[in-house]
């Protein structure tokens, strides 16, 4: 089978699998995350299905009343406090790993790198300035990094659910309970799915052991070190939680992390499955599945367009001779063919995963620009676990505001009026990431420390820096390679970009959720802007593209675009 035919087949299998799974998974998430509509009723009825024993243990350990709801400032404080504690714990764990068991002989991680990594994993970015197999012992990998893979994804789901509740509820100051939401997201969604996925990965040849590695003699007679480790268990949640932090430096291009083509495809499925199912959850919770369908329609439309363009750009690279050999090959996953590289690259940048099975630095300039632009979309198509949904909903608020005016009414989305305060929060949300990306890049290219890490100069060098800050600010975590980022400057700057890029939007989203929940609900009439029709889907897609295009066009023009048109 030709690589192109295989590529088409892979996409078809992926789409069928996602379509099949998103309904039951989305419905299940809606079920476990929906509280009873009467917060002031008998407390025991708040969670209709009750709590599992293990959840009760967690609630007791945290010291939280699982049947009390939180106002938005309390919900927000819980998110931030939980994340802060996570960062501190993860930092400490890395700094003392040499005294703990299962350290595999690794030294303490240096402060700059440890801070960067702690932020990176707690913010669901999983930017890796370090090389996994030569820095982190198994204990840190399992109890630090893998745990954050679960919790950071669960935090994303919790924040998204809080925003959805804002749309669902009216006349209340309660948004639910963060601790219950996070616990349930882990126990009832992430853990079961990750367990199944890990077993599939092991069956597919991903390693899972506690060995610190073996020295093997190759056929050619040379000695090679083969690292071991609990890879499959971490790999499952790495993709499922759109984390992307690889066990090994080479990430999913490493044969132990990505042993075969179908495992690579399975990984793509894993990293897309929750973000593409959450719109269904949203639709179920707001009581109109068409609303969820519209959101998923925008996400899928953007993703499809991006994949098509990237595949096309990659396939037509390098002239006739190279095209016969499969077009662009440098840095590609040549074991499985170019199309799977393009698919993986598109999926990993469109979700906030950042795992790679090929090196984006070596993509054609156009291909590289597209994976960069994917992240610049703000990680909403479909975006990270939870963060994709809340990002898209905020953009929908902006789209509804302008479009709503055009139908002659004060704009309202899902019955909620978009007034001064709602628009302040949404406008600030849209502002955060471009400011981080552009100022970060500007600072990096004007300072010697920033420029010192560049592998390439000229446009490609600019692309590398732009990519790094885009990836960090959008909590993607993929690297363009070519940039030596494990320096004090980049560890600090990218760490700040990751922290602000994650938590400023969360602050705004939870505040928005609080505003919306406090409002009443306007009835839907023929004069209301319909937000479930293809027209709105197209409009929202256009708003996403325009917001990106207008903001990043100059920077892209000097980076990848200048290179592509050279």
């Amino acid at each position: 089978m030709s690589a192109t035919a295989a590529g088409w087949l892979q996409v078809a299998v992926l789409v069928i699998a996602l379509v099949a799974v998103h309904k039951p998974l989305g419905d299940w998430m809606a079920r476990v995350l929906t509280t009873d509509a009467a917060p002031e009723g008998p407390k025991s009825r708040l969670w209709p299905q009750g709590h599992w024993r293990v959840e009760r243990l967690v609630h007791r350990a945290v010291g939280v009343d699982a049947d009390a709801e939180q106002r938005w400032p309390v919900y927000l404080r819980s998110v931030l406090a939980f994340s802060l504690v996570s960062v501190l714990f993860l930092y400490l764990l890395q700094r003392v790993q040499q005294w703990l068991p299962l350290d595999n002989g690794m030294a303490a991680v240096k402060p700059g790198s440890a801070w960067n990594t702690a932020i990176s994993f707690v913010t669901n970015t999983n930017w890796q300035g370090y090389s996994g197999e030569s820095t982190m012992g198994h204990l840190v990998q399992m109890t630090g990094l893998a745990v954050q893979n679960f919790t950071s994804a669960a935090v994303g789901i919790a924040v998204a659910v809080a925003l959805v509740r804002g749309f669902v509820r009216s006349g209340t100051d309660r948004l639910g309970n963060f601790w219950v939401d996070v616990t349930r997201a882990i126990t009832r969604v992430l853990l079961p799915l990750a367990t199944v996925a890990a077993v599939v990965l092991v069956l597919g040849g991903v390693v899972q052991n506690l060995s610190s590695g073996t020295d093997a003699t190759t056929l050619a007679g040379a000695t090679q070190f083969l690292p071991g480790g609990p890879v499959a268990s971490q790999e499952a949640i790495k993709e499922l939680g759109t984390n992307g932090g690889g066990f090994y430096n080479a990430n999913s291009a490493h044969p132990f992390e990505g042993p075969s083509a179908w495992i690579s495809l399975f990984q793509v499925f894993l990293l897309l499955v929750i973000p593409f199912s959450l719109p269904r959850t949203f639709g179920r919770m707001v009581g109109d599945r068409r609303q969820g369908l519209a959101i998923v329609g925008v996400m899928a439309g953007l993703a499809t367009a991006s994949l098509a363009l990237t595949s096309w750009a990659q396939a037509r690279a390098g002239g006739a001779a190279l095209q016969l050999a499969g077009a662009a090959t440098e840095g590609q996953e040549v074991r499985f063919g170019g199309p799977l590289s393009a698919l993986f690259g598109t999926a990993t940048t469109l979700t906030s995963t950042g795992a790679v099975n090929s090196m984006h630095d070596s993509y054609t300039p156009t291909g590289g620009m597209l994976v960069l632009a994917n992240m610049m979309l703000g990680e909403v198509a479909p975006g990270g676990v939870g963060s994709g949904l809340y990002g898209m909903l905020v953009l929908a608020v902006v789209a509804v505001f302008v479009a709503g005016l055009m139908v002659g009414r004060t704009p309202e989305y899902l019955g909620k009026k978009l007034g001064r305060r709602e628009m302040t929060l949404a406008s600030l949300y849209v502002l955060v990431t471009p400011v981080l990306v552009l100022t970060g890049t500007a600072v990096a290219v004007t300072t010697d420390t920033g420029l010192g890490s560049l592998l390439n100069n000229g446009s490609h060098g600019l692309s590398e820096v732009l990519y790094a800050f885009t990836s960090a600010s959008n909590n993607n975590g993929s690297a363009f390679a070519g940039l030596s980022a494990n320096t004090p400057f980049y560890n600090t700057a990218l760490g700040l970009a990751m922290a602000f890029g994650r938590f400023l939007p969360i602050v705004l989203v939870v505040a928005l959720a609080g505003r919306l929940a406090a409002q009443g609900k306007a009835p839907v009439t023929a004069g209301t802007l319909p937000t479930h029709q293809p027209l709105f889907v197209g409009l929202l897609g256009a708003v996403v593209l325009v917001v990106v295009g207008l903001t990043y066009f100059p920077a892209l023009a000097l980076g990848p675009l200048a290179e592509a048109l050279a």
Partner: protein
Amino acid sequence: MTTALDRRPVSATPTEPRPRAAIEWGPALAGAVRKLDPRGLVRQPVVFVVWVGSVFSTVLAITDPSVFGWLIAGWLWLTVLFANVAEAVAEGRGKAQADTLRKARQTTVAYLLDGSEVPAADLRPGRRVVVVAGQVIPGDGDVVEGIASVDESAITGESAPVIRESGGDRSAVTGGTTVLSDRIVVEITSKPGETFVDRMIALVEGASRQRTPNEIALNILLSSLTIVFLIVVVTLQPLAVYSGAEQSLTTLIALVVCLIPTTIGALLSAIGIAGMDRLVQRNVLAMSGRAVEAAGDVNTLLLDKTGTITLGNRQASEFVAVGTASEAEVADAAQLASLADETLEGRSIVVLAKERYGLRGRDDLPGAVFVPFTAQTRMSGVDLPDGRQLRKGAAGAVLAWVRAQDGPVPPEVGDVVDGISAAGGTPLLLASASADGARVLGVIHLKDVVKAGMAERFAELRRMGIRTVMITGDNERTARAIATEAGIDDVLAEATPEDKLALIQREQSGGRLVAMTGDGTNDAPALAQADVGVAMNTGTTAAKEAGNMVDLDSDPTKLIEIVEIGKQLLITRGSLTTFSIANDLAKYFAILPAMFAGVFPGLDALNVMRLSSPESAILSAVVFNALIIVALVPLALRGVKYRPASASAMLRRNLLVYGIGGAVLPFVGIKLIDLLVSLMPGIA
């Protein structure tokens, strides 16, 4: 409430707006120059950024003179000026009307009850003044004694005089209007400087204009976009330096000004003022811009049946014969019984008899004695010289009259009467008595006549998602029948003022916005509670105080137009915002290659307009950016075209025109300007 009779005839077709003067650019330009003061511009962040850019580029042009630098600086100042022109033109509209009103305020003397003179400016609420024919009423107040015809044309523009009398709902008089006949005593209700006319002057001049909630929200979005583009351009310079393509400050300022949403930023306040102005042209005064905006959002319209939906009087539509009588006999008797009946209902019986049965009016019936209607008998009629007595009236009263004379009552009478009631009509029984005894002749079917064209307008409203509720004192059955005929969604029958208030609160608790009209004092609570409360100018002071709009024409049908104006205001804002943002695409394609094609020749591929030189490209974009503001001033003042349609249809149309149009038009415009600009020495 006023009775239907004293209302002017109202039509279902939109009222013709007052003829509007052409835009007076001269005074507007003078006003625009005055507005260059930055302290005033801070309210409009987008325009303020352009102002700062203009100052900087002027300094740069002075320190480092070049044709390009001076041209950019000049056009940036023009951009600010054009933004001010938009506002000044809109404000100038109100000036003319305000001047007319000021003339009405020229009353200086008031006469107290004891005949002494006091200056009108000293009048305080509670003072009583006497106004006789030919005098101007010195202040707002209520007539407490007497009746007079008053010329209110100074305020309403309507020359026909109106009747004002003490007591009841027609007691309110407005300062500045002229008494034409008789003598009235007026109790002053407003302080000097706070009269209705004073408030009108402030409103039409825009002096008391406060920004509305939606305008503020949009301003926040625009500010946020402005910040984004400022960051984009500020951070672009380091990237450009890195790439070896450092840009001049003038170019960067030009890029910022082109990218930030100047078009909508410049026109935003003009759109708001013009929205109020459009209401003024239709003789509606909105006490706040908030109310105009709310009008666009209205979900439920409460409409009084009388005067709004129906013509206000019932008319005979049919004669039904019962028993042995023939239809012609009924018609003849009905006409005779109504000859002396001067009510509109009575007239309509005579008219029907003439039109349908060819019975000519008989002017005098010698010897006939007319029996007038009284509340006790609830009948009227005539006693003819030949001894026949004819009576018409409420079914119960007439039947009792027949039975009292032992007359037979045909069994079908009940059915006919009930049938007419069920159809929303009013049955009048017609009976005669003579030496042969009394008998029931037939039934006159009186019905409310729905105004022509109303059904279409209600269907329009339904398409816009607005529910209509008819308010009437009629019973439920009658009300339903009329509602069905007029195409009204719901009715509130046998409505008391409390019912109205409760209905509004019920609608509002469901998140709906309610609009209503009213004129009586007992309407005041409901008017205050409604999101849009339109008081009739003929109404009481209490009603006018409670509502947030006053209709000088006192035409309740106008509520529909008010809703449309509110919608048009929001649509204009949304459309011009979309247009403004869509414009940026072409500007990027003009400016980016101009900035960077020197270093990266490949980027010249972005120069799709093939503009002649970098300087010409940047200048053309700036010039287009400034001119488009002036070009859109008339649209901002007029409002974008509004046709009632469903939300999807409107969105599709406006997206096509202002979204796609906004993306395409600047490509053409910038290219054309470039063709001219490139002819200039020092640019090409």
